[in-house]
């Protein structure tokens, strides 16, 4: 299946008639309107790419999104690059990415500079005093939504898999709280330990059956 989509993406024919400006404009519109964070952006991309322009099927969209989960950096930017590549190769990826980022990055910078000018006004300070704890709350929720699918997939690997996952979670939290070990070392260490555990656990389960 992946090979199939690869073959298609190497000969970009979807949306082949579309002019570069039109493509750029569609992504600009997504980048400029998607207020409400990543899920709003993803929703708009899916609506435009799958439903309105038929650049890819629902299936391909889901598979691309899955692959983007393990790619470095902002997943949505990877997804946009993949879709753009599929429409018009390297030029399509570049146009799509810059189209999406131009308005959203400009608005982000604009809001920041406005904010930097008024941040010491008393009313802004007290508004922010309310916003900070709310951001922390939303962040805790985000951490929870990151952990839940990982623990679920660990549970599918049996009791040992769940045990390893819980230990890694507690260990990395404790190390970050109590030591000054570089964060990168904690992340890579947890990844390596989990890879070794998985290598040990999965073949054994197959043997049992």
């Amino acid at each position, binding site marked *: 299946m992946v090979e199939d989509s690869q073959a298609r993406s190497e000969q970009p024919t979807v949306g082949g008639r579309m002019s570069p400006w039109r493509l750029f404009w569609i992504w600009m519109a997504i980048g400029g309107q998607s207020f409400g964070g990543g899920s709003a952006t993803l929703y708009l991309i899916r609506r435009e790419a799958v439903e309105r322009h038929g650049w890819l099927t629902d299936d391909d969209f889901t598979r691309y999104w899955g692959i983007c989960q393990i790619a470095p950096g902002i997943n949505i930017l990877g997804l946009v690059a993949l879709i753009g590549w599929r429409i018009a190769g390297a030029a399509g990826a570049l146009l799509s990415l810059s189209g999406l980022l131009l308005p959203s990055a400009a608005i982000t910078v604009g809001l920041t500079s406005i904010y930097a000018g008024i*941040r010491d006004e008393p009313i802004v300070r*007290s508004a922010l005093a309310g916003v*900070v704890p709310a951001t922390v709350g939303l962040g805790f929720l985000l951490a929870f939504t990151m952990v839940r699918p*990982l623990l679920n997939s660990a549970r599918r690997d049996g009791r040992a898999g769940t045990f390893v996952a819980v230990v890694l979670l507690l260990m990395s939290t404790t190390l*970050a709280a109590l030591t000054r070990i570089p964060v990168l070392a904690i992340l890579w260490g947890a990844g390596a330990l*989990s890879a070794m555990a*998985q290598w040990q656990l999965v073949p054994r389960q197959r043997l049992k059956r």
Partner: protein
Amino acid sequence: MSHHLELFWIMLRAALFSTTGTGNLPIVHQDLLSRGWATDRQFAESLAIGQISPGPTGLWVISLGYFVGGLRGAALTLVAITLPPLLVLVLVHGLYRRWGHRPVIQGFVRGLGLAVAGVFVIVLSGIMNTAGWNPANLMIAVGGIVLGAMRRVPVLVVLVLAAIVGIALF
């Protein structure tokens, strides 16, 4: 100038070794705070601005880049966070097709995700330490969790409500 190049390198490295828009937060937090280039308050402000502005939430670091290095800092940060996701093209056209189903790769990705979440919680607690764990702040944080968990309320509305509560209380 070297200050800006170093900022670019910090942002690039953090994006390379993390996934999702906020996975880079623990690394960036450690790198910038240890140099004294940013404060916990600026992290909280950037995260809030990233939530309010359109596009991926991950653009919050552009706001942080602006605080640290002005317009040039923001532009360099934008370039730094755009490059790593392009590796997904390599992943799709080569590595993932061959290796993605291997338990070792899946295990690595899982461990990485768990550790990111674990460190993330500690960073958030640090921001809360700066703000203070008093009843009012706790109430607002719990309110944010509840409204956010309902999924129906846009993040923008949650933050505006929090700002109004802040103006009323503080």
